[in-house]
């Protein structure tokens, strides 16, 4: 659905995106994850035909975004960052205008409008002037606009930014639902978001793609994917040394050294070292009050991949 080859983009000399390569297949929900300024919005503006690439080739649904821009634009629903909308229009009026602009046949406009209003829960405000709506509703109007011509591909730039937790949850549910029918590329700098909604993550940093995998695989990448959290009564140095000696343990990190000692034990990928660790504790006679497995989070993967 999306095929990006060697994409670079410079803003008057400043390289915002460098040599990007990635593909998105039909039916995928792909999360574009990266810190602010990483180049997410820039890439999305190029994909939607708003900005020209400086270098490289970008195809959407088999059409080139520069030479066949009109064909590309017919097939995507794009929701820009910060949802710019005409503040003087009413919701109904705006959606009708956008539907006509996107060449929805006259006979289907009514039905499409009802459908997107239902989907985005806009029925209560459809006669209101957009300028008077709250941020959450504006976001939904923009989403309804992106959906109104039933596009194959949805490009959503930070769809949950500026929303309260309830609204974020609602939008995420909606995106998951939409993913059953549409291909979606969404950007975010919030990790839990991709973890919850996407089946693939592209991590982008400083204009380059650092990783591309499922959220689960990415977390596995990080220090083998798991660790043990141990809380014992023991001397920190002694405990760290003895636990490090256990077979297949890669590293021991002291988290807190007080009355009780908190440790994190990292094992080699895919190996369970709980038995070995417990054996040491028993042998040494340390008091034990916690021994728990911890899954690495995507957050750690992200920090690891995007740090210098």
């Amino acid at each position: 659905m999306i095929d990006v080859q060697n994409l670079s983009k410079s803003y008057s000399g400043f390289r915002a995106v460098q040599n990007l390569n990635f593909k998105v297949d039909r039916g995928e929900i792909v999360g574009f994850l990266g810190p602010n300024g990483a180049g997410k919005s820039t890439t999305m503006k190029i994909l939607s035909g708003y900005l020209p690439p400086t270098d490289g080739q970008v195809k959407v649904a088999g059409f080139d975004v520069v030479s066949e821009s009109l064909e590309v634009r017919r097939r995507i629903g794009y929701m820009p960052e910060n949802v710019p909308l005409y503040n003087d229009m009413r919701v109904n009026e705006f959606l009708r205008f956008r539907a006509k602009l996107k060449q929805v046949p006259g006979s289907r406009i009514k039905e499409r409008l009802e459908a997107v209003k239902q989907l985005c829960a806009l029925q209560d405000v459809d006669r209101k002037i957009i300028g008077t709506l709250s941020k959450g509703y504006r976001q939904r109007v923009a989403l309804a606009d992106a959906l109104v011509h039933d596009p194959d591909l949805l490009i959503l730039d930070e769809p949950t930014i500026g929303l309260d937790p309830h609204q974020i949850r609602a939008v995420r549910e909606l995106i998951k639902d939409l993913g059953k029918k549409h291909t979606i590329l969404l950007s975010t700098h919030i990790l839990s978001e991709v973890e919850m909604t996407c089946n693939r993550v592209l991590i982008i940093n400083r204009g380059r793609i650092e990783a591309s995998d499922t959220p689960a695989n990415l977390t596995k990448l990080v220090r083998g994917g798991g660790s043990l959290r141990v809380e014992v009564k023991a001397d920190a140095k002694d405990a760290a040394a003895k636990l490090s000696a256990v077979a297949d343990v890669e590293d021991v990190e002291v988290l807190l050294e007080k009355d009780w000692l908190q440790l994190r034990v990292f094992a080699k990928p895919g190996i369970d070292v709980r038995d070995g660790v417990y054996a040491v504790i028993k042998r040494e006679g340390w008091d034990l009050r916690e021994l728990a497995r911890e899954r690495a989070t995507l957050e750690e993967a992200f920090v690891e991949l995007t740090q210098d």
Partner: protein
Amino acid sequence: MAFWTLYRREAGSYFVSPIAYVVFFATALGVGAYFNFIFNYFNDYGIRQLTVLQASVNTFFFWLTLMVQIPVLTMRSFSEEFKLGTIEMLLTAPVREWEVVLAKFFGAFSFFITLWIPLFFNLLLLTAFSNPHVPLLWRPTLNTALLIVLVGAFYISIGIFTSVLTKNQIIAAILSFALIFLSFSMSFVSYLKVTAQTQNLLSYFSAIEQMDTYSKGIFDSRPVVFYLSGTVFLLLLTQRFLEARRLKS
């Protein structure tokens, strides 16, 4: 076609905009008051050499009204889209740049025509209710209307062009006022002491002289060519500027 959808939105946006209403009432009031003043003045002093319409449109007041109202009408057209970021949404829909430019132009143009209806309405009132009866002179009236429409189209294209250059409406307005004034000030050159030849050439561009001719009921094709080609040229330029964003690297 996207043009009609865009045009309806553009024209519609004028009719819900408070600024547009202010411009409308200011124009209607100014033109009406001036019209009334001239009519009474002509009556009191028995002036017969000029028509009221001639006296209304061959004044600096008339030109100033045009030169101020048009930048105010057109300044938002692209600048506001840039400022709000709605241009991104607009141009990622399957529309062509020329459709957007034409829609903005004709949207402003339609409202501009609405602005000048009161002047001709005054003439109709005059014909209908005057005693002794003042006839409506069709030729001068239609010619005058034609020139207002032509000059308006040209000035609007200047306004649309300057608003594609900046996201600041005020800068767009000042810039278009400056350019419109520059184009208008060619009229003044004929007052300078220049050779008859130069004067002849410059009078071709002189809005004041054109209006003098037209309001007498004399048709001249040169202003038609000048203003129409100027309008087309500026609109093409606007389209190029808008397209550059998508095509240049």
